[in-house]
């Protein structure tokens, strides 16, 4: 039978989604001051996807992320305090301040890395999945990618390879409707990314990315199938990002009120809170307590990041090569 979510599971799901939202909303504010180096691409609005998927994964399972990777990192268990320091370019960051937003990786929790290359994650997860398969381990790998990446050759090649080698991979397409400023209705020939699965001999499904419960169940079925040797599958999650492609994007390609309408009617946190409080499983006070704890955590992470030291010239030539 489908695993029923316990009360602890529900609280964990809410905390994860709230942490991602708070992290991104705070970056949105702080990036405008010009103090944060590099680019940030915010995941706000898409929290139910990363959370619904990663709650089906353990630390030995791997994920590959995108340039919009903060949510995937947090959901997979990367420490948000270290992430904030990383984005601020501090020595205490997840990658010692040398990677920044688009290169946060933490192999200790199975996070292969955010990735500046669109569609770069597909070949990586084929590698980790092949390793698990050759070692006889029941671990799966999830490749998060967007509608833009769905048109990249790397993704097609990875889907083909995963299928012919029957690898435990889940191709998790987060279709937020825009590849940078290009509408996916314009640029994705078959519109539903899930339709492409049959060309690679794997099942493809579409799921509502604003609904944590829908993503959790659908991704859970795909992950369980892969774990049992059933091979790869394609799960398309339809959702929306609340901010621009990158911070600073004027979003002139979106209709006025488009985002606000989604925030008001479909928001994943709003829906989740309404459903678990209406059913009586969680109280409003419990959710408010999590909100306060998360806010304190993120506020603290920014204070710490700002005061932490930056890498020095002496750090420049360390960690360039890895010895095996």
């Amino acid at each position, binding site marked *: *039978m489908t695993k029923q979510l316990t009360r602890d599971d529900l609280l964990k799901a809410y905390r994860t989604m709230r942490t991602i939202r708070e992290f991104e909303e705070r970056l949105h504010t702080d990036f405008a001051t010009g103090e944060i180096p590099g680019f940030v691409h915010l995941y706000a609005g898409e929290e139910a996807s990363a959370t619904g998927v990663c709650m089906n994964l353990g630390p030995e399972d791997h994920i590959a992320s995108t340039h919009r990777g903060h949510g995937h990192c947090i959901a997979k268990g990367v420490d948000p305090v270290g992430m904030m320091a990383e984005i601020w370019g501090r020595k205490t960051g997840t990658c010692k301040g040398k990677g920044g937003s688009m290169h946060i990786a933490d192999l200790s929790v199975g996070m292969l890395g955010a990735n500046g290359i669109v569609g770069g994650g597909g070949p990586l997860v084929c590698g980790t999945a092949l390793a698990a398969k050759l070692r006889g381990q029941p671990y799966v790998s999830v490749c998060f990618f967007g509608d833009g990446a769905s048109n990249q050759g790397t993704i097609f090649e990875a889907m083909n390879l995963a299928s012919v080698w029957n690898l435990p991979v889940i191709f998790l397409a987060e279709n937020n409707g825009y590849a940078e400023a290009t509408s996916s209705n314009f640029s994705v020939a078959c519109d*539903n990314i*899930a339709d492409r699965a049959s060309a690679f001999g794997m099942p493809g499904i579409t799921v509502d990315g604003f609904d944590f419960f829908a993503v959790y169940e*659908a991704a859970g079925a795909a992950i369980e199938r892969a774990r049992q040797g059933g091979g790869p599958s394609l799960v*398309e999650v339809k959702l929306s990002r609340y901010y621009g492609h990158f911070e600073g994007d004027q979003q002139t390609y979106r209709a006025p009120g488009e985002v606000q309408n989604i925030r008001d009617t479909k928001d994943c946190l709003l829906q989740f809170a309404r*459903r678990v409080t209406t059913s009586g499983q969680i109280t409003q006070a419990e959710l408010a307590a999590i909100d306060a704890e998360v806010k304190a955590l993120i506020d603290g992470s920014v204070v710490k990041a700002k005061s932490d030291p930056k890498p020095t010239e002496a750090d420049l030539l360390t960690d360039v090569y890895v010895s095996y």
Partner: protein
Amino acid sequence: MKQCSSPSLVGIVANPASGRDIRRLTSKALVFPTVEKVNMIERLLGALGATGVERVLMMPDLVGISAGLTRAIDGHRADRDQPWPTVDFLPMRLTQGAADTVEAVRRMREAGVAVIVVLGGDGTHRIVAGECADTPLATLSSGTNNAFPDLREATLTGLAAGLVASGAVAVEAAARRNKRLRVRCAGQEELALVDVCVTRLEHVGARAVWDPTSIAELYVTFAEPGVIGLSSIAAMHTPVGRDEPRGGWVHCAPAGPAVLAPIAPGLVRPIGIAAAGALLPGQPMAIGALRGSIALDGEREIELDGRQAASVTLELEGPLTLDVPATLAAAVGAGALQRELGTGP
């Protein structure tokens, strides 16, 4: 017999979301790609055009059916190809949910369509049936569990719809009345066309019911051996015909006597039966109080906290659907398909 010359109007609703839910992972259900839905509509248009339908009202969408159809219409040459009706997309604001189907059907009724052709699964037809009143439906399966719509070549369905819309075959000869189930739960009312399933799954989640151990109770309008889906549980125990004036119910059990039932494509499972019986029209039957959810035609729609009072009632006043073979036979009998070569199309 001469073709009716008055302009006839047909509506088409094609659910862009049908045929791609979780059952592709949990069973071997087919993926129904958007391009194939467009192909089906093109085949429909050919048959509608051949039977004299002049205009089609089409539900728009944002995931490629409208776009694909627009491209096909641009490339269509009436002098080279067979004639197609004019296709008008309904000028409506899309929510990208079931509300779009409701709105499209409402507008089609207002415009006075003679027939609505529906491409979708049981879930899509359920939504259309809630709004179509006595406008007959021509059903085409493009979903996963298809107990209600016909699994049939679209050309034939288009011919039947066109013959009815153009007046060549009377609705009375072409259509049959279906049953439906009305669910009442804490002030909420919903309809189902085939089955109402009470599950132990607490969340609507991915909607489809695919886990046999989660099924607690089942109520059906009809249960025919030879039909896929949840209704097969009742069908393999106590069949009920689609035209019989009664329905059926089953209470499932985790152990004891069971029937082998094809509850989803590729998924044949033994389902324990604790009790079963007939559902009589107009007599509400209480749903057991449990924490779980109610699925309508295979999709979880209502979450139950164990405290709401809920009931199911069988009604005989469901939607009209075209019986395609009967319609075509009636047309042949009336000479409606006879033409003279060399004097026009």
